[in-house]
């Protein structure tokens, strides 16, 4: 089958480590934007974290935000330009630690935006510290004996947590750790953008992704880590879907 770089991705090599999932997620988002024909009315947000430089890779308008604030920034843009398509691209520290309040309240307001949440259970850019989604027992540079339930608390399960909010339209957890998972992730991301186009409200896709460097694993073992360990703690699936109904 025909397979090419989507127009929404620039022809630029990324700075990501070998085997990092960000490159796959970037491509899926870009493919969906291409497919829906919305590149010229899309504005994305770049997070603080490994994906901060995504403005060098995405071929559409991008605003780089302070750590954790993309949902608030996207709210500001979307409310002023309701016919534009807004996506945030956020890591686990950005979305579920320093930006927890912004995430929950944008979701609760039912902001008509699309959130791409890349969960790799570790802080990548700063060198492998504990993330809010680091799993119990998982090693990180700030949990040298493994994350403990009592001192550090368990991993925050974002989809489960947000599913309690009435404002949320769509929540799905996917993965990019196998070709089949990648295809499913693409479908979920597409749906999250379609919901926005149809003005159905807040959609979030959580993508379990590999961080071979900070997990200290070779790329193929990092895929196994997602498939065998992360999927047990973060089960894949649809956590909320009221896209069938109208967004009030």
């Amino acid at each position: 089958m025909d397979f090419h770089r989507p127009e929404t991705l620039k022809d630029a090599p990324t700075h990501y480590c070998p085997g990092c999932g960000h490159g796959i997620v970037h491509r899926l988002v870009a493919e969906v934007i291409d497919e829906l024909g919305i590149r010229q009315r899309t504005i994305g947000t770049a997070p603080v974290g490994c994906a901060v430089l995504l403005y060098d890779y995405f071929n559409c308008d991008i605003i780089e935000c302070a750590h954790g604030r993309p949902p608030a920034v996207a709210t500001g843009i979307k409310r002023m330009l309701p016919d534009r398509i807004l996506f945030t691209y956020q890591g686990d520290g950005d979305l579920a630690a320093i930006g927890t309040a912004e995430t929950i309240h944008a979701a609760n307001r039912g902001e008509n935006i699309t959130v791409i949440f890349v969960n790799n259970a570790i802080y990548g850019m700063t060198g492998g510290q504990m993330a809010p989604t680091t799993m119990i027992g998982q090693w990180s540079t700030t949990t040298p004996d493994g994350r403990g339930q009592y001192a550090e608390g368990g991993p925050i399960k974002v989809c489960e947590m947000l599913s309690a909010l009435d404002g949320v339209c769509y929540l799905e957890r996917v993965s990019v750790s196998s070709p089949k998972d990648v295809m499913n992730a693409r479908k979920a991301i597409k749906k999250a953008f379609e919901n926005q186009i149809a003005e159905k409200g807040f959609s979030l896709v959580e993508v379990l992704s590999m961080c071979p460097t900070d997990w200290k694993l070779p790329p193929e073992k990092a895929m196994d880590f997602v498939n065998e360990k992360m999927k047990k703690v973060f089960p894949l699936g649809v956590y909320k879907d009221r896209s069938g109904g109208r967004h009030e």
Partner: protein
Amino acid sequence: MAKIKFYAERCKGCGLCVLVCPHGNIRMSTELNETGHPYAVLVDPARCTHCALCGRMCPDMAIEIDDPKTSKKDKSGKPRE
């Protein structure tokens, strides 16, 4: 006729394509590219079915496939928007 392209200079040698190729038709090079990584190479073009699983797993857009039958490009070669 479809054609698969591996961009050696883009490849970081993660090997995810090698893992997912259903025909075991991709291997890593023994020499290094300009950025110091081994890179993916096709073993036998004749055995490639152009299923694009390798491209879908590639985090670096280092693999592309031209397939006139399913192409979404217009005649000028530009993708349709």
